[in-house]
């Protein structure tokens, strides 16, 4: 599989350089524990019944808890166990969780600003960053540009068919969702949440708009399959601009 992680870290001293190693190590560790592409990962072994939940790393139980909460708050559209599979698959939010965790390692070590992009899911902590949202219908172009207020935390996670491949399922049918969205982007302070909401919202399609509008502390930006844009009423506070 292979996700590429791009780090941009500002400020801090030697402690931050050391923390970079720790942050990278934490990403590798998350891959070893959670990757469904690795037959020997704890998640895979859990699915085969070779390992009990109680014997897994504590993070596995924490992820399970986060997934159950996301399922509740999304009316089941985020699901860690979809029809046809009996096991716990946190793919819908584990990348966001791992990137957020790695970014915090750097911030805790004294970095003034951290921007960490793990395969298109971005966590900003402090600093003054601008993040583009790719246009799913125009490769090489942006559909929007957003920025957090200086010094504030912001996560940007995008879901869509290209990014997620087969991992998004309508929880009712187990099939890829019927949707009019080409991409769905969520902005909120924490990437674990943004990743979960982006996954759920993309699966919901048109119903995502009312749902995300009502969700506190989260804004969204969407591109439909016909190339139209829509965004939540609070989105302009992050938006530097959108494509015409």
């Amino acid at each position, binding site marked *: *599989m*292979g*996700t*590429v992680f*791009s780090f*941009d870290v500002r400020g801090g001293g030697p402690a931050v350089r050391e923390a970079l190693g720790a942050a990278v190590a934490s990403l590798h560790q998350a891959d070893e524990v959670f990757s469904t592409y690795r037959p020997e990962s704890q998640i895979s072994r859990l699915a085969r019944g070779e390992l009990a939940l109680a014997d897994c790393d504590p993070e596995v139980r924490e992820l399970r808890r986060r997934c159950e909460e996301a399922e509740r708050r999304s009316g089941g559209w985020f699901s860690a166990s979809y029809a046809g599979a009996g096991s716990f698959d946190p793919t819908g939010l584990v990348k966001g969780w791992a990137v957020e965790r790695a970014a915090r390692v750097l911030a805790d070590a004294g970095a003034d600003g951290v*921007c960490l*992009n793990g*395969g*298109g*899911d*971005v966590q*900003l902590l402090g600093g003054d*960053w*601008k*993040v*583009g*949202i*790719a246009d*799913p219908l125009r490769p*090489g*172009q*942006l559909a*929007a*540009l957003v920025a957090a207020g200086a010094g504030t935390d912001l996560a*940007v*996670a*995008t879901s*869509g068919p*290209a*990014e*997620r491949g087969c991992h998004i399922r309508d929880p009712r049918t187990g099939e890829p969702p019927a949707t009019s969205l080409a*991409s769905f*982007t969520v902005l909120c302070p924490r990437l674990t949440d943004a990743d979960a909401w982006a996954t759920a919202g993309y699966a919901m399609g048109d119903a995502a708009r009312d749902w995300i509008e009502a969700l506190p502390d989260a804004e969204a930006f969407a591109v439909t399959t016909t190339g139209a844009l829509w*965004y939540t*009423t*609070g*989105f*302009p506070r992050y*938006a*530097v*601009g*959108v*494509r*015409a």
Partner: protein
Amino acid sequence: MKRRHPVRRVVLSTAATVSGIVVLIGLKPTASTGGGAQAGGAAATGAGQRSGAAAPASASGASPKGVTVTVTVTGKTVQTKYGPVQVRLTFTGGRITAATALQHPTGNKISDKINAHAVPALDQETLTAQSATIAAVSGASYTSAGYKQSLQSAIDETRA
């Protein structure tokens, strides 16, 4: 040589392209001003003031070879059910090239909701992610194989 032009009615084509500021106002004027023609959508019209550059034959684009006509028209203030609207348009060669809302409704729920959706349009440099100020791109999906072609890779290269 400049000539003074009589004030004329301006009929706006709804098909004209507006670049620059994107203002979402879908309003029908409730009172039409004298001589005010209206297009269903976007702008106040009417017998407004007009200033021009060069020596044009008309504002609609017919001009002597080699002369580009730029005309700025300021519409009269139109009272709508949401509040006053006044728009200034710039025509270059007969096409709308700029639009500015000199007055627009604020302070009521609907207007604030409409205004909240007025987000600026990205300029070309930003649109193609070539602005050096962009730190990351979300949604440009890639695994290791696709990374090289991704926008994120271009950013990582220039900012390193």
